[in-house]
Protein backbone atom coordinates (compact mmCIF):
# COMPACT_ATOMS: atom_id res chain seq x y z
CA UNK A 1 0.00 0.00 0.00
CA UNK A 2 1.04 3.47 -0.71
CA UNK A 3 2.91 4.93 2.22
CA UNK A 4 0.74 8.02 2.32
CA UNK A 5 -2.33 5.94 2.96
CA UNK A 6 -0.94 3.91 5.77
CA UNK A 7 -3.41 3.21 8.51
CA UNK A 8 -3.02 2.24 12.12
CA UNK A 9 -2.35 -1.47 11.78
CA UNK A 10 0.67 -1.90 9.61
CA UNK A 11 1.36 -5.46 10.72
CA UNK A 12 -2.05 -6.62 9.50
CA UNK A 13 -1.77 -4.98 6.18
CA UNK A 14 -1.63 -7.27 3.22
CA UNK A 15 0.68 -6.20 0.50
CA UNK A 16 -1.53 -4.25 -1.83
CA UNK A 17 -0.37 -2.67 -5.01
CA UNK A 18 -2.20 0.39 -6.18
CA UNK A 19 -1.82 1.65 -9.65
CA UNK A 20 -3.24 4.42 -11.69
CA UNK A 21 -5.34 7.05 -10.12
CA UNK A 22 -5.82 5.00 -6.99
CA UNK A 23 -2.22 5.80 -6.21
CA UNK A 24 -2.75 9.52 -6.34
CA UNK A 25 -5.55 10.19 -3.91
CA UNK A 26 -4.20 11.70 -0.77
CA UNK A 27 -6.80 13.37 1.32
CA UNK A 28 -10.14 11.81 0.59
CA UNK A 29 -11.36 8.32 1.21
CA UNK A 30 -8.77 6.29 -0.59
CA UNK A 31 -9.46 3.73 -3.20
CA UNK A 32 -7.98 0.36 -2.58
CA UNK A 33 -8.10 -0.25 1.15
CA UNK A 34 -8.40 -3.99 1.50
CA UNK A 35 -9.80 -6.25 4.17
CA UNK A 36 -9.27 -9.98 3.95
CA UNK A 37 -11.04 -12.64 5.93
CA UNK A 38 -10.83 -16.40 6.06
CA UNK A 39 -13.40 -19.05 6.75
CA UNK A 40 -13.19 -22.79 6.59
CA UNK A 41 -14.19 -22.86 2.96
CA UNK A 42 -13.55 -19.47 1.55
CA UNK A 43 -11.79 -16.17 1.60
CA UNK A 44 -13.52 -12.89 1.91
CA UNK A 45 -12.13 -9.61 0.75
CA UNK A 46 -13.46 -6.12 0.90
CA UNK A 47 -12.03 -3.35 -1.15
CA UNK A 48 -12.92 0.27 -0.67
CA UNK A 49 -13.87 1.71 -4.01
CA UNK A 50 -15.43 5.03 -3.14
CA UNK A 51 -16.66 7.00 -6.05
CA UNK A 52 -16.53 4.18 -8.51
CA UNK A 53 -19.64 4.06 -10.61
CA UNK A 54 -21.12 0.78 -11.48
CA UNK A 55 -21.26 1.34 -15.18
CA UNK A 56 -21.31 -1.71 -17.39
CA UNK A 57 -17.78 -2.94 -18.01
CA UNK A 58 -16.35 -0.20 -15.83
CA UNK A 59 -15.19 -2.53 -13.14
CA UNK A 60 -13.64 -5.94 -13.38
CA UNK A 61 -12.06 -8.35 -11.02
CA UNK A 62 -9.51 -10.94 -12.04
CA UNK A 63 -9.30 -13.96 -9.81
CA UNK A 64 -6.35 -16.25 -10.30
CA UNK A 65 -5.96 -19.77 -9.06
CA UNK A 66 -3.01 -18.94 -6.88
CA UNK A 67 -5.06 -16.38 -5.00
CA UNK A 68 -4.06 -13.26 -6.82
CA UNK A 69 -6.82 -10.70 -7.16
CA UNK A 70 -6.64 -7.77 -9.48
CA UNK A 71 -9.33 -5.16 -9.62
CA UNK A 72 -9.49 -2.86 -12.59
CA UNK A 73 -11.70 0.13 -12.69
CA UNK A 74 -12.14 3.64 -13.82
CA UNK A 75 -12.79 6.69 -11.73
CA UNK A 76 -15.29 8.75 -13.62
CA UNK A 77 -14.59 12.34 -14.50
CA UNK A 78 -15.51 14.25 -11.39
CA UNK A 79 -16.59 17.31 -13.29
CA UNK A 80 -19.46 15.50 -14.91
CA UNK A 81 -22.53 14.46 -13.00
CA UNK A 82 -24.27 11.29 -13.83
CA UNK A 83 -27.45 11.95 -15.78
CA UNK A 84 -26.61 15.60 -16.29
CA UNK A 85 -25.20 17.56 -19.16
CA UNK A 86 -23.60 20.28 -17.04
CA UNK A 87 -19.85 20.25 -16.70
CA UNK A 88 -18.27 21.57 -13.55
CA UNK A 89 -14.82 22.97 -13.18
CA UNK A 90 -13.48 21.38 -10.04
CA UNK A 91 -12.09 23.97 -7.67
CA UNK A 92 -11.35 21.51 -4.89
CA UNK A 93 -10.43 17.97 -5.75
CA UNK A 94 -9.48 15.67 -2.97
CA UNK A 95 -11.24 12.53 -4.09
CA UNK A 96 -9.44 10.26 -6.46
CA UNK A 97 -8.79 12.02 -9.72
CA UNK A 98 -10.48 10.49 -12.73
CA UNK A 99 -8.81 7.77 -14.65
CA UNK A 100 -8.18 4.06 -14.63
CA UNK A 101 -6.78 2.29 -11.63
CA UNK A 102 -5.73 -1.15 -10.50
CA UNK A 103 -5.79 -2.72 -7.07
CA UNK A 104 -3.79 -5.91 -6.71
CA UNK A 105 -3.40 -8.16 -3.73
CA UNK A 106 -3.08 -11.80 -2.85
CA UNK A 107 -5.46 -13.94 -0.90
CA UNK A 108 -3.81 -16.18 1.68
CA UNK A 109 -4.06 -19.32 -0.43
CA UNK A 110 -5.14 -20.87 -3.72
CA UNK A 111 -8.73 -20.39 -4.81
CA UNK A 112 -11.10 -21.62 -7.46
CA UNK A 113 -11.59 -18.61 -9.73
CA UNK A 114 -14.96 -19.92 -10.86
CA UNK A 115 -16.36 -19.97 -7.37
CA UNK A 116 -16.47 -16.29 -6.77
CA UNK A 117 -19.33 -14.18 -5.58
CA UNK A 118 -18.71 -10.48 -5.82
CA UNK A 119 -20.99 -7.83 -4.47
CA UNK A 120 -20.41 -4.22 -5.23
CA UNK A 121 -22.26 -2.62 -2.42
CA UNK A 122 -24.02 0.66 -2.67
CA UNK A 123 -21.68 2.12 -0.09
CA UNK A 124 -18.75 1.73 -2.40
CA UNK A 125 -17.28 -1.40 -0.91
CA UNK A 126 -16.57 -4.27 -3.23
CA UNK A 127 -17.11 -7.47 -1.31
CA UNK A 128 -16.02 -10.78 -2.72
CA UNK A 129 -16.16 -14.34 -1.51
CA UNK A 130 -13.88 -16.85 -3.21
CA UNK A 131 -13.95 -20.53 -2.41
CA UNK A 132 -10.64 -22.04 -1.44
CA UNK A 133 -9.11 -24.53 -3.77
CA UNK A 134 -8.39 -27.65 -1.77
CA UNK A 135 -7.45 -30.39 -4.20
CA UNK A 136 -5.99 -32.89 -4.23
CA UNK A 137 -7.49 -35.34 -2.56
CA UNK A 138 -7.57 -37.31 -5.76
CA UNK A 139 -10.41 -39.68 -5.03
CA UNK A 140 -13.08 -37.11 -5.66
CA UNK A 141 -14.93 -38.17 -2.58
CA UNK A 142 -15.17 -34.78 -1.07
CA UNK A 143 -15.33 -31.62 -3.08
CA UNK A 144 -13.86 -28.74 -1.19
CA UNK A 145 -16.22 -28.11 1.62
Amino acid at each position, binding site marked *: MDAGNNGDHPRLKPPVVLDGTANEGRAGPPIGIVDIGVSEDAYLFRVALPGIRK*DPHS*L*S*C*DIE*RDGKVQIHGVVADSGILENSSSVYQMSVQQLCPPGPFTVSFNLPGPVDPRLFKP*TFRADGILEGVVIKFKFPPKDG*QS*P*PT
Partner: protein
Amino acid sequence: MSTTTPSQTGHDPTLNSHQPGPLEPENLSSNVDLPPDPLLDSGSFIDANPSAATSASFTTATNDPTLDKREPIIDQESAAPANSNGAAESVTTPEKTPQRQSAAAESVTTPDKPPRRRSTAASSTESLNWLPPGWKVEDRVRTSGATAGMVDKYYFDPVSGHRFRSKKEVLYFLEFGTKRKRKVENSDPDMESLESSGSRKQKKSGAKGNTSTLNFDFENPPKKIRWVVMGRSEDTWTPFTGKDTEKVSEPVRQAWAAAFKSVSKDRYATC
Protein backbone atom coordinates in the same frame (compact mmCIF):
# COMPACT_ATOMS: atom_id res chain seq x y z
CA MET B 1 -49.22 -60.24 -12.01
CA SER B 2 -51.99 -62.67 -11.63
CA THR B 3 -54.35 -61.62 -14.25
CA THR B 4 -57.27 -63.87 -14.12
CA THR B 5 -60.11 -61.88 -15.42
CA PRO B 6 -63.53 -61.89 -13.95
CA SER B 7 -64.99 -62.46 -17.35
CA GLN B 8 -63.22 -65.72 -17.65
CA THR B 9 -64.32 -67.01 -14.33
CA GLY B 10 -67.78 -66.23 -15.39
CA HIS B 11 -67.29 -67.63 -18.85
CA ASP B 12 -66.57 -71.15 -18.08
CA PRO B 13 -69.01 -72.80 -15.82
CA THR B 14 -67.81 -76.20 -16.88
CA LEU B 15 -64.41 -75.50 -15.57
CA ASN B 16 -65.92 -74.26 -12.42
CA SER B 17 -67.60 -77.50 -11.86
CA HIS B 18 -64.39 -79.40 -12.42
CA GLN B 19 -62.35 -77.51 -9.94
CA PRO B 20 -62.62 -77.05 -6.23
CA GLY B 21 -63.99 -73.64 -5.58
CA PRO B 22 -61.20 -71.83 -3.76
CA LEU B 23 -58.54 -72.86 -6.23
CA GLU B 24 -60.53 -71.99 -9.24
CA PRO B 25 -58.77 -68.78 -10.26
CA GLU B 26 -55.30 -70.19 -9.95
CA ASN B 27 -56.20 -73.20 -11.92
CA LEU B 28 -57.75 -71.22 -14.62
CA SER B 29 -54.46 -69.56 -15.25
CA SER B 30 -52.54 -72.64 -14.49
CA ASN B 31 -50.60 -72.65 -17.71
CA VAL B 32 -48.70 -69.91 -15.94
CA ASP B 33 -46.69 -71.16 -13.05
CA LEU B 34 -47.36 -68.26 -10.80
CA PRO B 35 -47.57 -68.82 -7.11
CA PRO B 36 -50.86 -67.74 -5.65
CA ASP B 37 -50.77 -64.21 -4.47
CA PRO B 38 -51.76 -63.78 -0.87
CA LEU B 39 -52.56 -60.14 -1.40
CA LEU B 40 -54.81 -60.63 -4.35
CA ASP B 41 -58.29 -61.95 -4.04
CA SER B 42 -59.11 -64.66 -6.43
CA GLY B 43 -60.64 -63.36 -9.55
CA SER B 44 -59.16 -59.94 -9.18
CA PHE B 45 -56.41 -58.50 -11.27
CA ILE B 46 -54.02 -55.63 -10.97
CA ASP B 47 -55.07 -53.19 -13.53
CA ALA B 48 -56.10 -49.65 -13.04
CA ASN B 49 -58.43 -49.43 -15.92
CA PRO B 50 -60.37 -46.48 -14.59
CA SER B 51 -57.34 -44.32 -14.49
CA ALA B 52 -55.96 -45.82 -17.64
CA ALA B 53 -59.01 -44.51 -19.36
CA THR B 54 -58.23 -40.99 -18.25
CA SER B 55 -55.00 -40.95 -20.12
CA ALA B 56 -55.87 -43.42 -22.78
CA SER B 57 -54.82 -41.16 -25.61
CA PHE B 58 -51.44 -42.83 -25.78
CA THR B 59 -51.42 -46.35 -26.98
CA THR B 60 -48.34 -48.31 -27.78
CA ALA B 61 -45.55 -47.20 -25.57
CA THR B 62 -47.56 -46.69 -22.47
CA ASN B 63 -48.16 -48.50 -19.32
CA ASP B 64 -50.34 -48.30 -16.34
CA PRO B 65 -50.21 -44.65 -15.47
CA THR B 66 -51.11 -45.17 -11.87
CA LEU B 67 -48.08 -47.29 -11.45
CA ASP B 68 -45.80 -45.21 -13.51
CA LYS B 69 -46.77 -41.98 -11.91
CA ARG B 70 -44.27 -42.85 -9.29
CA GLU B 71 -41.54 -42.75 -11.82
CA PRO B 72 -40.52 -39.09 -11.42
CA ILE B 73 -39.59 -39.55 -7.83
CA ILE B 74 -37.86 -42.84 -8.30
CA ASP B 75 -34.18 -42.53 -8.67
CA GLN B 76 -32.82 -44.18 -11.76
CA GLU B 77 -30.38 -46.25 -9.81
CA SER B 78 -32.84 -47.48 -7.29
CA ALA B 79 -35.38 -48.36 -9.91
CA ALA B 80 -33.04 -50.26 -12.14
CA PRO B 81 -32.41 -53.27 -9.94
CA ALA B 82 -36.07 -53.76 -9.37
CA ASN B 83 -36.68 -53.73 -13.05
CA SER B 84 -34.02 -56.15 -14.03
CA ASN B 85 -35.12 -58.35 -11.25
CA GLY B 86 -38.61 -58.24 -12.55
CA ALA B 87 -37.43 -59.03 -16.02
CA ALA B 88 -35.85 -62.22 -14.85
CA GLU B 89 -39.09 -63.49 -13.41
CA SER B 90 -41.14 -62.01 -16.13
CA VAL B 91 -44.11 -64.03 -17.09
CA THR B 92 -46.50 -63.25 -19.80
CA THR B 93 -49.87 -64.61 -19.25
CA PRO B 94 -52.07 -65.39 -22.17
CA GLU B 95 -55.23 -64.42 -20.40
CA LYS B 96 -54.83 -60.72 -20.40
CA THR B 97 -57.66 -58.36 -20.63
CA PRO B 98 -57.76 -56.58 -23.94
CA GLN B 99 -56.64 -53.39 -22.34
CA ARG B 100 -53.57 -55.04 -21.03
CA GLN B 101 -52.59 -56.65 -24.29
CA SER B 102 -49.98 -54.16 -25.39
CA ALA B 103 -48.42 -53.91 -22.02
CA ALA B 104 -48.50 -57.62 -21.56
CA ALA B 105 -46.47 -58.22 -24.65
CA GLU B 106 -43.41 -56.66 -23.17
CA SER B 107 -44.38 -56.21 -19.60
CA VAL B 108 -42.68 -57.41 -16.53
CA THR B 109 -45.22 -58.90 -14.27
CA THR B 110 -44.54 -60.54 -11.02
CA PRO B 111 -47.39 -61.44 -8.82
CA ASP B 112 -46.34 -59.54 -5.79
CA LYS B 113 -44.31 -56.78 -7.32
CA PRO B 114 -46.02 -54.77 -9.99
CA PRO B 115 -43.58 -53.20 -12.39
CA ARG B 116 -42.77 -49.67 -11.59
CA ARG B 117 -41.32 -48.68 -14.90
CA ARG B 118 -42.12 -51.14 -17.54
CA SER B 119 -40.35 -49.51 -20.42
CA THR B 120 -37.00 -49.62 -18.75
CA ALA B 121 -37.28 -53.24 -17.92
CA ALA B 122 -34.98 -54.58 -20.55
CA SER B 123 -32.54 -51.75 -20.73
CA SER B 124 -29.33 -50.74 -19.17
CA THR B 125 -28.12 -47.20 -19.30
CA GLU B 126 -25.99 -48.00 -22.28
CA SER B 127 -28.25 -50.01 -24.55
CA LEU B 128 -31.06 -48.17 -26.19
CA ASN B 129 -33.55 -51.00 -26.31
CA TRP B 130 -35.98 -48.96 -24.35
CA LEU B 131 -36.13 -46.31 -27.00
CA PRO B 132 -39.05 -46.68 -29.39
CA PRO B 133 -38.13 -47.38 -32.99
CA GLY B 134 -37.60 -44.33 -35.10
CA TRP B 135 -36.10 -42.21 -32.40
CA LYS B 136 -32.74 -40.67 -33.01
CA VAL B 137 -29.93 -40.48 -30.53
CA GLU B 138 -27.13 -38.02 -30.79
CA ASP B 139 -23.96 -37.75 -28.82
CA ARG B 140 -22.82 -34.20 -28.56
CA VAL B 141 -19.47 -33.19 -27.26
CA ARG B 142 -19.26 -29.95 -25.41
CA THR B 143 -16.89 -27.72 -27.26
CA SER B 144 -16.28 -24.91 -24.86
CA GLY B 145 -16.42 -23.90 -21.30
CA ALA B 146 -15.10 -25.57 -18.25
CA THR B 147 -16.84 -28.82 -19.08
CA ALA B 148 -15.58 -29.05 -22.65
CA GLY B 149 -15.09 -32.60 -23.78
CA MET B 150 -18.01 -34.05 -21.92
CA VAL B 151 -20.51 -35.95 -24.01
CA ASP B 152 -24.21 -35.35 -23.77
CA LYS B 153 -26.79 -37.75 -25.16
CA TYR B 154 -29.77 -36.21 -26.86
CA TYR B 155 -32.89 -38.03 -27.95
CA PHE B 156 -35.10 -36.85 -30.77
CA ASP B 157 -38.70 -37.80 -31.29
CA PRO B 158 -39.24 -38.29 -35.02
CA VAL B 159 -42.91 -37.31 -34.76
CA SER B 160 -42.93 -34.20 -32.66
CA GLY B 161 -39.32 -33.25 -33.25
CA HIS B 162 -38.87 -32.65 -29.58
CA ARG B 163 -35.43 -32.97 -28.14
CA PHE B 164 -34.80 -34.67 -24.85
CA ARG B 165 -31.76 -34.59 -22.69
CA SER B 166 -32.26 -37.65 -20.64
CA LYS B 167 -33.87 -41.04 -20.64
CA LYS B 168 -36.08 -39.86 -17.86
CA GLU B 169 -37.42 -37.07 -19.99
CA VAL B 170 -38.08 -39.43 -22.87
CA LEU B 171 -39.88 -41.92 -20.71
CA TYR B 172 -41.98 -39.21 -19.23
CA PHE B 173 -42.88 -37.94 -22.67
CA LEU B 174 -43.78 -41.39 -23.89
CA GLU B 175 -45.99 -41.87 -20.96
CA PHE B 176 -47.81 -38.60 -20.71
CA GLY B 177 -47.40 -37.19 -24.17
CA THR B 178 -46.01 -33.92 -22.92
CA LYS B 179 -42.68 -32.67 -21.91
CA ARG B 180 -41.92 -32.89 -18.33
CA LYS B 181 -42.91 -30.22 -15.88
CA ARG B 182 -41.11 -29.98 -12.65
CA LYS B 183 -42.85 -31.18 -9.56
CA VAL B 184 -42.93 -29.35 -6.28
CA GLU B 185 -40.01 -31.28 -4.92
CA ASN B 186 -37.71 -29.15 -6.97
CA SER B 187 -39.15 -26.01 -8.41
CA ASP B 188 -36.19 -24.89 -10.47
CA PRO B 189 -36.02 -26.54 -13.87
CA ASP B 190 -32.46 -25.45 -14.47
CA MET B 191 -31.30 -26.99 -11.31
CA GLU B 192 -33.10 -30.16 -12.18
CA SER B 193 -31.50 -30.58 -15.53
CA LEU B 194 -28.14 -29.72 -14.12
CA GLU B 195 -28.51 -32.27 -11.45
CA SER B 196 -29.75 -35.04 -13.63
CA SER B 197 -27.08 -34.52 -16.22
CA GLY B 198 -24.54 -34.27 -13.50
CA SER B 199 -25.46 -37.53 -11.93
CA ARG B 200 -25.54 -39.22 -15.29
CA LYS B 201 -22.07 -37.95 -15.99
CA GLN B 202 -20.85 -39.30 -12.75
CA LYS B 203 -22.22 -42.72 -13.43
CA LYS B 204 -20.56 -42.88 -16.80
CA SER B 205 -17.24 -41.64 -15.63
CA GLY B 206 -17.14 -44.56 -13.32
CA ALA B 207 -18.52 -44.10 -9.86
CA LYS B 208 -17.04 -41.00 -8.51
CA GLY B 209 -18.18 -39.95 -5.15
CA ASN B 210 -21.85 -39.47 -4.79
CA THR B 211 -21.35 -36.46 -2.61
CA SER B 212 -22.33 -33.92 -5.20
CA THR B 213 -24.87 -34.04 -7.93
CA LEU B 214 -23.37 -30.96 -9.49
CA ASN B 215 -21.86 -31.04 -12.88
CA PHE B 216 -18.74 -29.32 -11.79
CA ASP B 217 -15.12 -30.28 -12.00
CA PHE B 218 -13.83 -29.24 -8.64
CA GLU B 219 -10.38 -30.55 -9.29
CA ASN B 220 -9.37 -28.43 -12.22
CA PRO B 221 -10.08 -24.77 -11.80
CA PRO B 222 -8.93 -22.52 -14.59
CA LYS B 223 -5.91 -20.37 -14.00
CA LYS B 224 -7.73 -17.12 -14.15
CA ILE B 225 -11.24 -15.78 -14.51
CA ARG B 226 -12.12 -12.19 -15.09
CA TRP B 227 -15.35 -11.01 -13.57
CA VAL B 228 -16.83 -7.88 -15.07
CA VAL B 229 -19.65 -5.70 -13.87
CA MET B 230 -22.36 -5.80 -16.48
CA GLY B 231 -25.34 -4.07 -15.00
CA ARG B 232 -25.70 -0.66 -13.56
CA SER B 233 -28.72 -1.17 -11.39
CA GLU B 234 -28.37 -4.72 -10.24
CA ASP B 235 -25.17 -6.32 -9.19
CA THR B 236 -24.44 -8.47 -12.19
CA TRP B 237 -21.03 -9.90 -12.69
CA THR B 238 -20.18 -11.86 -15.76
CA PRO B 239 -17.21 -14.20 -15.92
CA PHE B 240 -14.82 -14.24 -18.83
CA THR B 241 -12.07 -16.68 -19.53
CA GLY B 242 -8.89 -16.14 -21.45
CA LYS B 243 -8.00 -12.50 -21.19
CA ASP B 244 -11.38 -10.90 -21.43
CA THR B 245 -12.18 -12.50 -24.73
CA GLU B 246 -14.43 -15.42 -24.10
CA LYS B 247 -17.61 -14.91 -22.21
CA VAL B 248 -18.58 -17.84 -20.07
CA SER B 249 -21.90 -19.18 -21.21
CA GLU B 250 -24.92 -18.74 -19.04
CA PRO B 251 -25.49 -22.44 -18.25
CA VAL B 252 -21.89 -22.79 -17.21
CA ARG B 253 -22.14 -19.71 -15.08
CA GLN B 254 -25.22 -21.12 -13.43
CA ALA B 255 -23.38 -24.35 -12.80
CA TRP B 256 -20.66 -22.36 -11.14
CA ALA B 257 -23.18 -20.50 -9.06
CA ALA B 258 -24.74 -23.76 -8.03
CA ALA B 259 -21.35 -25.15 -7.15
CA PHE B 260 -20.57 -22.05 -5.17
CA LYS B 261 -23.80 -22.40 -3.34
CA SER B 262 -23.21 -26.03 -2.53
CA VAL B 263 -19.71 -25.43 -1.31
CA SER B 264 -20.41 -22.39 0.74
CA LYS B 265 -23.41 -24.11 2.27
CA ASP B 266 -25.60 -21.09 1.70
CA ARG B 267 -23.64 -19.06 4.12
CA TYR B 268 -22.96 -16.35 1.65
CA ALA B 269 -25.04 -17.29 -1.31
CA THR B 270 -27.92 -15.17 -2.23
CA CYS B 271 -27.80 -15.83 -5.91
